[in-house]
Each structure stands twice: as C-alpha cells, then as structure tokens.
C-alpha cells in the first residue's frame, strides 16, 4: 500500500521482564485518525511512544513513511511528528510565543517565517494574540491545551501523535475543544494516531479503532466493524454497556437505507430536509426537537429517491439492519 504512513510489525516492548506491549501489528494510512483504545495500563501510551522513539521497541519493526525509524536520528524523526499529551507540558520558563517557536527554532527558521506561522496558527486555534507574551502559569486549562497543540502543529508535521489530549480538561471544555479540533483543517490533512480510554471519544473521532487489552490487540477495524462483527467476547463485552448509543453514533441513514419506510405525509407535521449522510443519532435528535408535533424528515440523496421518515421508522430500520448483519 503506497499511502501507508505508519506501520508496526510484530512489535513488542518488555519492561522489567513483563511485556507491556506484546507482538502487535497495524498500519495507519495517510489522513486517517487511528485510535488506540483500551483500559488504563493496557499499553496504549507505550505503543504510541515507540512510534517517535520516546520508548525503544524491544522487538519488531516500525516504519514511518516506509522508512525504518531506527535508520534516522531520533531528533530528526521527532521534528516531523507532532506530539501532544494529556499533561500541561508547556515550558514554564518560556512565554507562549517562545513555547510555540521551539520546533521552528530547532529547524532554524528565520524570525519572520516563525512569527507569521504563529500568528496564523493562534488565529485558527482561537487564541488571543495578547496571550503570546504570557507565561504558561497564567493560562486556563483549555488555553494551555490549545497552545500545546499549536506547538505540535507549528512546523506542519504530516503525522500527529496524541495521548489523551483532552484527558486533563473538565467535561464541558473537553467536548467543546474536541468538536473544535475536529473542525480544524490543520488536523483534517494529518495522519493522526490518538490514544484514549474514552469510548465515546474514540467513536466520535476515529476513522479506525484499535482495541487493546494487556498489551495485545483485540481487534482493529472501522467503528461499525467493532460493533457488528466483534472478533471475540472481550470486544463484545467492552462495548456492551453503550452499544446502542455507539451504533447510533456510527451508522448513517445510508447504511440503513433499504430498511427505511417511506411514510405518508401528514398535513399537521413539520418537515425538515436532511442529507442521508447524517448519523442515526443526529436524525433521532432532529425528530425530537419540536416535541409537541411529530417531525418528518425528508431525506433527499439526489441520486435515488426521496423518503419521508419518522423517529419510529428509524428505530424500525435499525432493528432490521441489525437482524441482517
């Protein structure tokens, strides 16, 4: 595969005679958001850190852009891979601007180029330029994590490694920043490997998910594959608690299209036109919005026919879809 960016081949990491990561293999393609998911201590962080050589693998091969990572100096490798972690790791003795400028300075950019890039980036990240002269101690948690991301993105590395990047934030800030990050065009172009233990977050952001347990991979696949074709009982049990909710997050109207019934239009109903690419949970949310009257959605996918559907219709279509898996 020509567009494979990161590839792990039978990689093992042993700490003090105990394998923290045990013979794992996976590949990440360009532009993917690849999620490492699992309970605390299952080896996610260790896996991530082996990619930029903060931890050296005990056995196995790791390729980045087709090249063995051991074949180049670790410092050069790392300058092309952004790295963001949960903790506030801004340098306390550097101002915000100096923090963001760390990698450009290592790459010997000239001042103007660095400043121009910083100004552009903080604008995208909704950071006030007034903060540039401030020291990290004075930032809020959300601001600090944005600056952290800016520092990782400033040299526009093609790969981004993130280790529970929202883990230290309160729930509100957390989902706000997560949505914001998801919209960021800087991130859309990147190949991202992200660690999380939050199932919701994994399904919301991941294009593929790798579920780990005790250092081993339990299953790697698209979100829907993990839900409908679990490889073993561990995977099934892992998602059982929030299975329905996850299904609705993952499935789109197109996925259940054959099972959606076209309901007759009623004069008293509200109408709303939507795209078939929205998720079931989004569609359910829309039918419930105006609660005194039943809302009908007119689904128009331009190519085929239109359907007028209701909330009950969506639930029915989902159960039919599930029966046919």
């Amino acid at each position, binding site marked *: 595969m020509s567009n494979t960016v990161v590839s792990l081949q039978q990689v093992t990491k042993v700490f003090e005679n105990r394998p923290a990561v045990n013979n794992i293999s996976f590949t990440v393609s360009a532009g993917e958001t690849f999620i490492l998911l699992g309970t605390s201590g299952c080896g996610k962080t260790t896996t991530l850190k082996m990619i930029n050589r903060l931890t050296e693998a005990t056995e196995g091969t790791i390729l980045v852009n087709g090249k063995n990572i051991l074949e180049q100096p670790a410092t050069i490798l790392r300058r092309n891979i952004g790295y963001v972690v949960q903790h506030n790791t801004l340098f306390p003795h550097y101002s915000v601007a100096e923090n963001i400028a760390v990698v450009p300075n290592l790459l010997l950019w000239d001042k103007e180029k660095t400043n121009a890039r910083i100004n552009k980036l903080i604008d995208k990240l909704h950071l006030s330029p007034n903060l540039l002269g401030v020291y990290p101690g004075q930032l809020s948690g959300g601001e600090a994590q944005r600056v952290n991301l800016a520092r*990782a993105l400033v040299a526009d590395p093609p790969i981004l490694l993130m280790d529970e990047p929202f883990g230290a934030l309160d729930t509100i800030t957390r989902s706000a920043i997560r949505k914001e990050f998801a919209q960021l065009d800087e991130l859309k172009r990147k190949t991202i490997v992200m660690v999380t233990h939050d199932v919701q977050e994994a399904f919301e952001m991941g294009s593929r998910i790798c579920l780990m347990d005790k250092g081993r991979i339990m299953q790697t696949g698209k979100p829907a594959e993990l839900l409908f074709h679990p490889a073993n009982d561990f995977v099934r049990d892992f998602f059982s608690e929030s299975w329905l909710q996850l299904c609705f997050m993952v499935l789109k109207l197109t996925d259940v299209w054959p099972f959606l019934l076209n309901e007759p239009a009623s004069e008293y109903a509200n109408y709303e036109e939507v795209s078939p690419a929205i998720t079931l949970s989004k569609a359910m949310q829309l039918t419930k919005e105006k609660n005194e009257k039943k809302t009908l959605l007119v689904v128009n996918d331009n190519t085929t026919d239109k359907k007028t559907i209701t909330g009950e219709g969506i639930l029915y279509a989902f159960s039919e879809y599930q029966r046919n898996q």
Partner: protein
Amino acid sequence: MGETQTFWSFIQEQAGKLLEQTLQHIGLTFISLLIAILIGVPLGILISRRTKLAGTVLGIAGVMQTIPSIALLGFMIPLFGIGPKPAIVALFLYALLPIIRNTYTGIINVDKHIKEAATGLGMSDRQTLFKVEMPLAMPVILAGIRIATVINVGVATLAAYIAAGGLGEFIFGGISLNNTNMILAGAIPAALLALLFDFLLSRLQHTTLKKGRVVFVMLPLILLLSAFYVLPSLGASGLLAGFTPEFMGRQDGYLGLKKTYGLHMRIVVISDAVMYKAAQEKHLDVISGYGTDGRIKAFDLVTLTDDKKIFPPYYCAPIVRKQTLEQYPELKNILELLTGRINDSVMTALNYKADYLHLPPEQIARDFLTAQGLYKPPRNGKKATIRIGSKIFAEQYILASMYTQLIKGYSDLDVQTKTGLGGTKICFDAMTNDQIDLYPEYTGTGLLVILQPAANKIDSLNQDKDAVYDFVQKEFQQRYQISWLQPIGFNNTYALMMRKEQTNALNIHSITDLVHYVDTN
C-alpha cells in the same frame, strides 16, 4: 559603655589588618566556591544522566562534609603544605556536596512530562539539558550555591589555623588572648559576610528565575570576589616562622620578640595543632611552641635559648573555686599530692606518650601515679561531684586525668570532667560562671591573659617565678574568688623552636643567633 568604646577604638586601630583579613576571607570563600561550582555542577549533571553513579558520588562528597574541619585541614598539610592551598582545597571539599546534590536533585526533579515533551519535540539531550532542565533546575542549584557560600564563610575562619589568613586570625587570637574586642572584630564581619552573601544570592535566585541569564551575572561576580584574595606572601625566600594567633598578640610573644630582640622575619599565623607537624615537614622553620610539649621530642625539634628573658615563667598549678575549697577542704591536700613530682623533662616525656605514642591520657596518668606510689583505686563515693576542666591539649588532659584519679581514690567525691575547653578564655569563663570547679592553669597565663596588669607592674615582677606566683595568687583570690594551689613544678613557658638539624647547620642556638642570621641573610 567603656566596652563599646574600646571595641571601636580596637577596630580603628586595626582597620588595616581588618580590611586585609576581610578581603582574604572573601577571597578564600569565593575561590573555593568557584572551583566547587566548576567541578560540582558538571558532576551533578553527570550523575543526573548516569543515576547509577549518583549514590557513589554523593556518598563521597557527603563523607567529606562529615570530616571535622580542623581534621580535614590537618589532613591537607602533608598533601599541600600550609597556607592558602590546603585551605582552598578543604573549603572546596566542603562546598562540593551542596552544589552537586542540588544540581542533581534540581535536574532529577524537573517534571518528567516536561522533559519528555522537550525530547518529543526533537531536542537533543544537550538542548534538553541547557534549554529546559538547567533553567528549571536553576533555583535549586542556586540554593545549593547559597548553602555552600554560607558554609564557606563560616569554615574559612578556620583557615587561620593553617596560615591562610582570614578573619579567623582575630577570632582565634581573641579567644587565646581573652580579648573580647578582638573576637568580635573577627566574628562580626564574618557573620555580616555570611548574611550579606546569603541575601545577595537569594535576590539573584528570585529576580532572574524566568531566564537562564543568572549564570551570566554570577560567574563574573564570583571571579571578581575571588580576586580579593591577595595571597599571603609565601613566595619570598629565607626562614619562615609560624606563630599561633595567641603568640602574635602577646607582649611575651611576638610583640616582645620585635621590641626586645628586634626580630623581623617572614611570619604566618597558624594553629598549634598543626604547627609542629608543619615544622617537621619543613613548611616552617621557626615556631612558637610550649616548653614541655611532647612533640618537641617526637619531631626532633630544639628550643632556642631566650637569652634576653622575654618569656615569663609559666609554672603550672591547679586553680580552684574558693567556694568549692571551703565546701570540700579535703581537696587541697589531694590536689597538692602532685607538687614537686613533675619537672620539665618528666612533663615532656608524659606529653610525648600522648602526642606521639597516642596513649590515652587516663592510662598515662594512671601509670605515672602508680609509679609514684600515689595511685589508689576509686572509692566510688557519691558525696558530691567535682567538675574538672581542661584546655584542649594533651598536657591538660593528662593533668585532668591525674586529678580525677586522685580525687576518686583519696576522697568520697565523684568527678565529672569537662575536657577540651578551647582556650584560656573559655576555661576561665566556665569557672567564673560556675560550670567547672578547677583546672590546671599557668602563672604566666594568669598574669598576662587574665589579669593583664599595666606594663610597669609586669616589669616590676621581673619575670621572677615566685613574684609572679604570689601576684596572681593574691589577685585571683581578691578579684575572682579563685585559689591557686601549690605549683606542680614544671615550667611550660613559650619557646621558639627549630628543627635540630637546621640549628646545627645554621649554627643558631639562641634567639639572638636567629635574629642575627635573619638580618644577615
């Protein structure tokens, strides 16, 4: 009020010397500090990188600090001689631990996530060290340097013991001479220096925390302060004398030598603890010793004849609080059992056993008393406890042991010894403050150090053994309610000493010979 005035007049009188000593003190402190920083900081960095070495390195540096300062200075003499070199090495060793330890802990304790972020961003180990770890560890490193500075200002007073100068010359001279003004003239500036440097470094530590620039301020500053050290002139040739701080300040010491004999030679100030050894090892040619010191015999030294009689008699006798004698009248006879039994050569031989053969004073005392037929086993009486003091040299320890054994054997009194009181002033003050009941004292010391009569009074006594004894006995009784019992017999007076082989080679046998030799060479 009179005290204050004399203190200021002392300062004014000695301003030149005080300035010189202060500058020497600052210089000593900072030269050694500079070396300690140049070696300690890289060592601290090294062990933060190779943590397996940390235990060993910190252990060794820690052991250095537990060696008592005087002992460490003593160890330095065979290696580096006397003067500034051994003092700087010793101070350097003391400053090393806080600097290594704080550099190490400062770096180790930098948040590991921040270190990892630096590495993750692509910094090399060097860049991580200098851009992230060192700046963040700087407050801790500076705190270590602060501690080392304060330690060094304190320990540098001891440099006076090995002829390296500094404010210790006044402090130890003052203690020996019972001159409070002199002690204060050394101690107050030393304390002020410690406070001043502590304050300045704390300012530095807090003002420039944000940036790593503090290093660029500090190093030149320390270099400048180091330059204050005008090395005591050891360079010139000719005979070199080493005199104790006490001897330097006394009429019957160096002042008398200058006045009566017209002696002018190169002199360094040194502690009597290391003086004999330094003479034996040819770092010094002439020293001011005591007539009965065991090391005279041990190190093959000879005393020069005092042909113009400037050294007064120093007959040794027990002195006792009058109140104690009245309470326990049996003490007088017991203490006077030694009278007439120890002459100069007997005392020298006893001292030799302690200083050179390293026998314990108790054993030397017991052997002697047994040989004299005086020894009786202790009665273990509990009637009361007599507190015996002694100054910090072998002869006093031996005498204190003899008195202890005699009192225990001949009376129902118990004894508690408070040995190692560091000088005449400390011993005497302990007695007037009812901390000890008796200790062996010397007539000359009583006269010149404690009583300090006017010069014409001293002249009228004419260095006469009995006249001096009668005078101190009467005055002590009146002024301090302290009794002088019968002298033991030996005269531990001051004497100038040289190596025997050198006196023969240069044909110097009296002080006049020495003066003549120095003047013509």
